[in-house]
């Protein structure tokens, strides 16, 4: 049995919609308007959420869970780049996350000492503290993407299973290094097994979901661009892509590094949310947890990843009685989804607000179309009779 590629037909992200209406009758939105609409919607949602938290409608417990939902959305969306779009199976996403978490929090702790920013400033959000946090997140992302390059270049020469196992191995190495680096460098860097403590609680609803919006936007635009199409071409058939002039090594590394960068940002947000980092947290299990979200949601669907990240984070919180069976349920879901619907919950479907608006503009509603079909069917029946 030779290496098989994904056999089912996938549209290039969500470019397709329903069948297009013929001719010039179809009205479309110009690109700037589309972006403007989406930006406004995101802003409104962010402000609304922040107002609800400030007003006390959403309590701190709920807002912390929401922050975690956001962090997992970033993780799932970023893993989706490597799994869904590039078609590889990295099993070391938690390793990138830990690089980002450590990079970001060490940067913030050291810099806030040097600049004299107190822990309280992070809560109240002074401009300097905010700048530090944003800088920290970028540093975290860069740390993770450096790890992504180091692992990516040798790993991506390999295929499928070998790549999976080499990323797993690399994540384990990262964990061991995080544990023992202090003895090598001779001063306290990661805190070893005792963990890195005293990380200021800088993650907030606004910051996390701001990052979610930026990550989703960047992923979306990348996948709509020339680079994104090259990445999808590699997934669909690597040899054919290479034959048509796609620089496969470059694009595989690119996808890998972008995926790692976002995972690093998520790690930085995680550190600010929890306040303590221990290497043991970022084990194989964490990688699998993120993978389950992507697989369940639909490999290649950003909406699917985000949705399943949301559901899988909130569900165990909402159903504490279910928590005992949570792990085993994950396993069964994973197997069942693979057997019955290998493309995941949403397949490669992605949500597009502009598409809906365009449909409304064109009076092209599903029920209208269904009614039309019904009429046709009735006619056929009539003709038969």
């Amino acid at each position, binding site marked *: *049995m030779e290496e098989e590629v994904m056999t089912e037909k996938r549209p290039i992200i969500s470019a397709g919609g329903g069948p297009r209406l013929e001719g010039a009758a179809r009205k479309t939105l110009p690109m700037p308007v589309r972006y403007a609409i989406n930006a406004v919607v995101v802003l409104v949602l962010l402000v609304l959420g922040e107002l609800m938290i400030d007003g006390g409608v959403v309590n701190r417990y709920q807002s912390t869970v929401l922050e975690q939902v956001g962090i997992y959305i970033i993780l799932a969306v970023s893993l989706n780049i490597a799994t869904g779009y590039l078609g590889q199976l990295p099993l070391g996403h938690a390793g990138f996350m830990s690089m980002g978490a450590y990079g970001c929090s060490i940067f913030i702790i050291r810099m806030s000492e040097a600049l004299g920013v107190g822990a309280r400033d992070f809560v109240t959000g002074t401009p300097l503290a905010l700048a530090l946090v944003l800088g920290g997140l970028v540093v975290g992302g860069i740390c993770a993407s450096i790890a992504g390059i180091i692992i990516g270049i040798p790993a991506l020469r*390999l295929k499928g299973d*070998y790549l999976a196992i080499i990323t797993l191995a690399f994540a384990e*190495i990262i964990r061991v290094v995080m544990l023992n680096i202090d003895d090598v460098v001779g001063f306290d860097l990661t805190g070893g097994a005792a963990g890195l403590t005293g990380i200021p609680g800088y993650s907030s609803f606004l910051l996390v979901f701001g990052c979610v919006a930026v990550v989703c936007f960047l992923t979306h635009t990348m996948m709509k661009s020339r680079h994104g199409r090259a990445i999808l071409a590699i997934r669909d058939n690597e040899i054919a892509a290479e034959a048509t002039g796609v620089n496969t090594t470059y694009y595989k590394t690119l996808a890998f590094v972008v995926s790692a960068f976002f995972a690093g940002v998520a790690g930085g947000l995680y550190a600010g949310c929890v306040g303590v980092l221990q290497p043991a947290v970022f084990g194989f299990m964490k990688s699998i947890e993120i993978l389950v979200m992507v697989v369940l949601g639909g490999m290649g669907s950003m909406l699917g990843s985000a949705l399943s990240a949301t559901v899988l984070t909130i569900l165990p919180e909402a159903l504490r009685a279910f928590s005992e069976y949570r792990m085993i349920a994950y396993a069964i879901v994973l197997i069942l989804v693979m057997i019955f619907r290998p493309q995941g919950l949403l397949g490669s479907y992605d949500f597009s607000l502009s598409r809906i608006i365009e449909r409304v503009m064109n009076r092209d509603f599903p029920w209208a179309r269904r009614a039309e079909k019904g009429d046709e069917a009735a006619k056929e029946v009539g003709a038969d009779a």
Partner: protein
Amino acid sequence: MFFTQVLNGLQLGSIYALVALGYTMVYGIILLLNFAHGDIIMVGAYVSWLVMAQLGLHPVLAIILSVAACTLMGVLIDKVAYAPLRNAPRLSILITAIGVSYFLENGAQLVFGADAKVVPAYTDIQTIQLGGLALSFPSVLTVLVTIVATVALTIVVQKTKLGKAMRAVSEDMGAARLMGINVNTTISFTFAVGSALAGIGAVLYAMAYTQANPTMGMMLGTKAFVAAVLGGIGSIPGAVVGGLLVGFAEVIVTALNLSVWKDAVVFLLLIIVLVVRPTGIFGRTMNEKV
């Protein structure tokens, strides 16, 4: 001290080799990384515990039942989880395998609890004397059984009709089917043999380390997989050489007083081998078709 460390390496390497053989066989025939393989060993160890500690039956019965349970488990996993995906993309089967592994670990934790169970001793013999040296009996037995199992496996694969069928299926599944080979039976047989080896591994493991816990298969399985890849996945001598390599690497690193870096060294070894020679030491290169 040198001799003791050599024996330590041999024993550790032998257990890795036994487990790696199972990985290699399954991969060789359906190109599946059976992540659940390590967890089959966990099942075997728990069966031994159940039979001896809970039911109080004879150790020989425990050995037989452990191996039988592992064999059955392997075939069952194939039929339930992998067989429906025979023609699915590789990624799907791999994820399913992770799911099965996850299922077994968490199922065991739910049923038996997170605490380790102590498997009673199979035999009273603890050490054997050899020319003035006291050798640990489980160590010696582990090495011997591994040698016997490898030789037996090689004979089965090379000389028997089923072995020939296995080789044919691994060469070209479609052509083998056209030649009248029952592909599904052959695959089941492969899983049975691989899992039976895991069962033997489970007994040897429980004899040497006396504990069974839900996650014991994870690290063991991962290391054994590393061994299989090092040796060249799909190759029987490769699995044995890889197992010994991993075992000795761990012992050498520890003997050098660098034990904190032990796992990192094993995984680094894997990365280096994969980068320099992606097919492993004994592996064959496979050409990819469009």
